[in-house]
């Protein structure tokens, strides 16, 4: 016998699917199976059950070996590291809930930290662009119900957001979109013939790194102005045709991903994509949306937004919040030797930062909170395993369209394990004691 938990939220990607069903053993300790999830989401739930899971903190020894320590010792090390630091980097925050993010921010205020989230290597340049030109957008349900023109630019949902096209953007039938996929024109812009591109009506195989030029060309084409014969490897005839396709829709949406945020021009690519969307609102209705990666990277940007006014890269070291990507962003800080301690939670810079930055973490006092073994836990001095948010504890998470959803607890964490929030609250309390506050 098993009981079924319904309306479960998937804590993997920014699509934040909330229709999963998980069958759990009667005693509520074991996950037996996961329904409605994509391959990645299902794996996340099932792996939480791994037999070889680390359930107690580990401290790296001189000889590189690891020694199990108590949560108390872990709290003490983390608190002391932060309290002694003149400029700690507190990085990650994307795979945890908003309550932990808020508690962590209070910790950052007390110790005068730089707070940065995974947007810094994902959609940070999108946030810069939004600050420069804004962003006309909408919730995913609007696309489900209204959209008849869909552009995926530099993103590959078939792989990165596996249920996006079936739940929201391409296949479903909504209020004004009774024909489903048949009623929608799908355009993909990507230098590779991705599995997403293979399902598109039109694929523009752009020359890598020339998105800014092609986006500009579309704005020129909307106005019917002159274009060179080829832009970014795309013939001008095609550009004029696709421009007309965009204009002719009733409701269009441009989704974009790391293909533009991480390629040359970065924020300018997004900036111009947003301007393309602005222009299209002179002719019909268009919106644009970033395909956010981590399931709650959006949430950390919101929490920091309401507490300190910036979505990432906040420097709290001087007792007030400052912000300037290029200066207060993780990779610049690490490479420029601007920080003297690193605290990582809910992310894996060891795997996803350029090695030059990872080496710097290796050289510094460092703590990593993560349920898994990762390259980051391998380079940090202290590894604090925690319960899986969205599996073993609930809490708020923000979908890629900023819609907040309450995650569900499905099973208990292993005996005696702490959640992110519990560990952070204990560190806050200890730091306050040390600072005599």
């Amino acid at each position, binding site marked *: 016998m098993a009981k079924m938990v*319904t*309306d479960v*939220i998937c804590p993997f990607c920014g699509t934040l699917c*909330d*229709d999963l069903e998980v069958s759990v053993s009667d005693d509520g300790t074991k996950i037996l199976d996961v329904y409605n999830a994509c391959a990645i989401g299902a794996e996340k739930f099932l792996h939480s059950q791994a037999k070889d899971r680390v359930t107690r903190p580990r401290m790296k020894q001189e000889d590189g070996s690891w020694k199990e320590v108590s949560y108390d010792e872990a709290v003490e090390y983390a608190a002391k590291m932060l309290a002694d630091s003149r400029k700690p980097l507190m990085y990650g925050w994307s795979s945890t809930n*908003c*309550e932990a993010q808020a508690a962590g921010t*209070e910790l950052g*205020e007390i110790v005068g930290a730089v707070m940065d989230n995974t947007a810094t290597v994902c959609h940070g340049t999108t*946030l810069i662009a*939004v*600050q420069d*030109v*804004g*962003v*006309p*957008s*909408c*919730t*995913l*349900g*609007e696309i*489900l*119900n*209204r959209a008849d023109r869909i552009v995926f630019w530099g993103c590959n949902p078939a792989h990165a957001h596996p249920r996006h096209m079936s739940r*929201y953007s391409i296949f479903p039938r*909504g*209020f*004004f979109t009774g024909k489903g996929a048949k009623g929608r024109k799908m355009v993909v812009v990507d230098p590779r013939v991705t599995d997403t591109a293979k399902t598109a009506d039109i694929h523009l195989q752009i020359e890598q790194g020339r998105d800014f030029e092609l986006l500009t060309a579309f704005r020129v084409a909307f106005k019917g102005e002159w274009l060179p014969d080829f832009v970014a490897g795309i013939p001008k005839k095609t550009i004029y045709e696709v421009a007309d396709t965009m204009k002719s829709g009733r*409701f269009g949406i441009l989704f974009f991903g790391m293909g533009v945020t991480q390629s040359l021009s970065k924020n300018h690519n997004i900036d111009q994509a947003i301007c393309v969307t*602005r222009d299209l*609102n002179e002719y019909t*209705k268009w*919106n644009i949306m970033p395909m956010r990666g981590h399931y709650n990277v959006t949430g950390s*940007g*919101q*929490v920091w*937004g*309401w*507490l*300190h*006014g*910036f*979505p990432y890269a906040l420097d*709290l070291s*001087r*007792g*007030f*919040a*400052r*912000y*300037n990507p290029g200066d207060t962003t993780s990779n610049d800080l690490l490479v420029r030797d601007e920080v003297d301690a690193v605290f990582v939670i809910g992310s894996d810079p060891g795997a996803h930062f350029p090695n030059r930055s990872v080496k710097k973490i290796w050289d510094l006092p460092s703590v990593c909170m993560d349920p898994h073994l990762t390259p980051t836990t391998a380079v940090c001095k202290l590894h604090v395993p925690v319960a899986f948010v969205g599996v073993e504890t*609930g*809490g*708020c998470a923000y979908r890629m369209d*900023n*819609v*907040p*959803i*309450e995650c569900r607890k499905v099973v208990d964490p292993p005996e005696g394990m702490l959640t992110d929030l519990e560990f952070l609250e204990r560190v806050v309390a200890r730091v306050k004691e040390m600072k005599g506050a």
Partner: protein
Amino acid sequence: MAEYLIKNGFVYDPVLGIKGDKVDVAVKDGKMVETSALSNPAEIDASGMTVMAGAVDIHAHVAGPKVCVGRNFRPEEKLFRAKPMAGIKRMEGGFSVPTVLKTGYDYARMGFGFVMEAAMPPLYARHVHEEIRDTPIIDEAALPVFGNNWFVLEYLKNHEIENTAAYIAWLLRMTRGFGVKNVNPGGTEAWGWGLNCPTVNDPVPYFDVTPAQIIRGLIEANEYLGLPHCMHVHSNSLGEPGNFTVTLDTLKQAEGIKARNAFGRQQVLHHTHLQFHSYGGESYASKSFESKSKEVIDYVNKQDNITFDLGVVTLDETTTMTADGPFEHHLTELNHLKWVNTDVELETAAGVVPYIYSPKTFIAGAQWAIGLELGLFAKDPMRTFVTTDHPNAGPFIRYPRVYKWLMSKAAREDMLDNVLKYGNTVRDRCYIGEIDREITLFELAQMTRAGPAKALGLEAMFGSLKPGMEGDVAVYPYNPETSEDPEDIELAFSNAQYLIKGGEIVVKEGQIVSNGNKRTFWVNCKVDENPQVERDIAEKFKRYYSVNQGNYEVYAHHYVPNPYVIEVDATQ
């Protein structure tokens, strides 16, 4: 809990009818009490100062998704403006869109005890409540938006008041909401296709219901339920020259409807930021644009079932934000500044655009004048409330400056003569120059305390120092007997000497000394079972919402950790 005796202050209390007499004020266990009820109180010497109940803000955008967008996409307005942490006081940042920490502290510094978040998109209710939770000191509540909601559009097309009411009651419970907000009725749904509804008679595309039907229907549904607050409307064509006729058509929808509730509220329609809706002329050109404040207020003065707030333009660089999606698009086309839009499935939309009200332009000057004219022409201060539609017409920290303009003709003349570049054109095209009235401190207490508290159905808790009321007392360093310079008004009301909130001192000698114990107010309204509405809700979630119905309700403790629930029984 503590006891306080505030002695020798000049007290202004419209409910008790105290007009500046020296009366001692007593607080015990979080409530106002008779001085005789105190055993051994801490004494606060308020001699030479003004004492009022904690102020009540009926309309400000202080928490939620569009506010957070305003913060996150304007780093430039935070530059060199931060206030560092100090003791228990946390870091503060921002100007026109302050962080929630600065929001709570600044309201406290101005002597406020309660603030209404004016527009909550239901699908984003969690976000609104998280921000409210993290805003220190002040009690808050939020109004979900209904005027473009598909359920409402479908029900009101056929004038199904009972179904509309059942849906309202359900949504208030799901979102932990307080009342019925109605922004650009129908126009925002039309914006889903890039269109708008400029007048109350333009049918909504596909749904084929008019703004007039939506406005009247929501008033009727609101009174059917007997909610604490009335239907709260931001009418069509905000900011458009000549829009005063649309405003009058909107107000007329309330004719003949009587308030029906158990909270002492007497009005059925609240029109917000009336300044933006009292324009004449065909264009923004100084030859055409003119004030129609008199025409609008003459109607409001005659209709005793209407309240309104001003929405005074403060001539700052600010950030506009509203659920009026088409308006923000219109605005960005005018000023070419960055534009955020968010369309929310089945429910609403929102837009955000920075805006500079420059005293060097005629239009900003005229807008400044029109807002003040409405306050000065209004016959009943108990139905007239001070706001800046924060942050749309200006940041809320400018309220004391607005008080100054309302209370001093000299201050207004100084603006017209020395600050506004087109002061004389403003005198020509508006009424401001002809008005001698100066609002009194007693009237100010009506417009910022007793009035808004009554309109929100909270007169039993806020707006007065009467024994039994909440222990919210503000002491301002303003001496009504000796003070002559109008600047004193702005200075004093910006920097309360003391604020007692819920019986606890949070501002002492002008400094924040406590993060308070703020509460989130919401209305739990019971209605008869309504199988049709339940079916409609299940159907819409199954087919058209991007979240499951089971994940819609704001239920978890961490969203509303300190609730104050107002129970309403609307079962027949």
